[in-house]
């Protein structure tokens, strides 16, 4: 066979600048990857990681109590302030709230995910998917606003409870210490409900994904071996769904941990971590303490992610 019978494009040498450039990139895949990665890495590296380090560096400075100016000497005293009673209370309160919201989200999300994974087929499945995605993606502030309408003293919930003749129950609940208050919209109960509503959809899809991977015959085998549905759930379904629950809990926990808008709009005047950061950097002008406060959720999430990785949660994402 002579070269004359080959397609012209293979034998042709003069392929122009773009052709030669493309050949060079094909022959040097490392160069190609480098060219692809330079713009995003520059953007994320300089703008994001750069800002992050600038912030973290400031947590090692302190503020002069008299002048109110930042002293640029390395010190751990700002971190020491986190352990004062008032600040430590804020941290405990936030972590506790995040944990409660996560647990409640798992309880509410599980039946939805279970139905969607095991029973919904065809159009029903698409319906379930959209029914979860639309609230998940719809405007955060509008959702918070809707709950302000619901929880207000003259709002829907009070009206509904009144119709059911259960006003005494609501009043008794509001009379409770800590979780109560003069109305639901200024109580921890209200804050909790809004957090649950806003972050719960993030729990459904990971649980559904992990449940869909449980083979149906495993459940039948369990039943054939004489397990009651309850036993099958406890010893077959739940352990297999656990990585999905942990994966979902990463979202609900992290999002609750850093939120400062919900407790500001629906809640008592006691602060959460996000509000403390906001107040310290804004009105108080104490950037070092704000920076130290924002390290707290980073550390907590790093520990949480390490634990989650051990439980295989990342395969369920």
């Amino acid at each position, binding site marked *: 066979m002579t070269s004359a019978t080959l397609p012209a494009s293979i034998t042709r040498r003069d392929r122009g600048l773009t052709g030669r450039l493309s050949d060079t990139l094909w022959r040097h895949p490392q160069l190609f990857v480098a060219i692809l990665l330079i713009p995003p890495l520059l953007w994320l590296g300089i703008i994001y990681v750069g800002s992050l380090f600038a912030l973290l560096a400031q947590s090692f400075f302190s503020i002069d109590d008299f002048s109110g100016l930042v002293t640029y000497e390395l010190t751990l005293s700002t971190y020491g302030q986190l352990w004062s009673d008032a600040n430590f209370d804020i941290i405990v309160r936030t972590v506790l709230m995040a944990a409660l919201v996560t647990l409640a989200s798992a309880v*509410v999300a599980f039946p*939805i995910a279970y139905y969607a994974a095991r029973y919904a087929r065809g159009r029903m499945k698409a319906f379930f998917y959209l029914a979860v995605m639309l609230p998940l*993606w719809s405007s955060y502030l509008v959702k918070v606003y809707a709950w302000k309408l619901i929880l207000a003293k003259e709002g829907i919930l009070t009206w509904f409870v009144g119709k059911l003749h259960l006003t005494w129950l609501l009043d008794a609940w509001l009379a409770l210490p800590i979780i109560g208050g003069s109305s639901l919209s200024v109580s921890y109960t209200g804050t909790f409900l809004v957090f649950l*509503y806003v972050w719960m959809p993030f729990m459904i899809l990971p649980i559904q994904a992990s449940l869909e991977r449980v083979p149906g015959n495993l459940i039948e085998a369990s039943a054939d071996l004489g397990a009651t549905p309850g036993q099958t759930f406890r010893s077959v379904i739940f352990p297999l769904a656990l990585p999905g629950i942990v994966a979902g809990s990463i979202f609900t926990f992290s999002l609750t941990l850093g939120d400062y808008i919900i407790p500001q709009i629906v809640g008592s005047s006691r602060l959460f971590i996000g509000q403390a950061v906001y107040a310290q950097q804004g009105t108080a002008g104490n950037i070092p303490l704000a920076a130290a406060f924002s390290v707290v959720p980073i550390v907590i999430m790093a520990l949480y992610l390490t634990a989650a990785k051990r439980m295989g949660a990342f395969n369920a994402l």
Partner: protein
Amino acid sequence: MRSDRSTSAPLPLKIAAGAGLLFLHVPILIIFLYAFTTEEKSYQFPPPGLTLQWFAVTWNRPDVWAALTLSVKVASIATVIALVLGTLTAAAVSQTRFFGREAVSLLVILPIALPGIITGIALRSAFSILDIPFSTWTIVLGHATFCIVVVYNNAVARFRRISGSLVEASMDLGADGFQTFRYVILPNIGTALLAGGMLAFALSFDEVIVTTFTGGQQSTLPIWMLEELIRPRQRPVTNVVAMVVVLVTFLPILAAYYLTRDGDQVAGSGK
């Protein structure tokens, strides 16, 4: 051989799943009801009467229009930047293996994995260190950073489904790298990019936490709403804006769903 699965769910499960879905949707429906209420001062329920007048009032509010314009502008620019950077990263991560690949995907996810307040305060302190004045571009800078991940996720999933043999076939037939990209890769990833872009737009359009730190005195639509939530001035206008925001964000989500739904039929996926 698997025996026929029992088709119907147990009743308690149906009730729990239904109640969960109601919990998710009733609050959003309430927004629609309140846009028509005649009550101006409080959140009274049930509404004493229904009216359309607040739509006209909202239409004539210049501050609402200004906020909406700024939001659309920021979201559009941020989406374009995120599309370029997200696609580049996805192409690099999915097509080849290289040292530090895990670190790159972690870096992309980080802005959304860390609480928004940290991204916000970090950017703000960087702006103040560098003496950068607040502008539309400072908002865009923050938004584009966390929108990259949305485009990246969509693109990476699609890139993985494109068979490598398709690209090789194109090269064998004499196309150079750019032609292969233009005629083979782009048509295959097009809908995924469109979907990613729409989600990025929706994410940016709705963002409030980072914007409170990077916006200065400017108000995007979510910032406008936040101010109304903290210090209500005219509740009926807020109700109407809330309803419009819900409708505006639903469209890109629905479109993104229909665009990625048929992704399994991408050419070359059945290798």
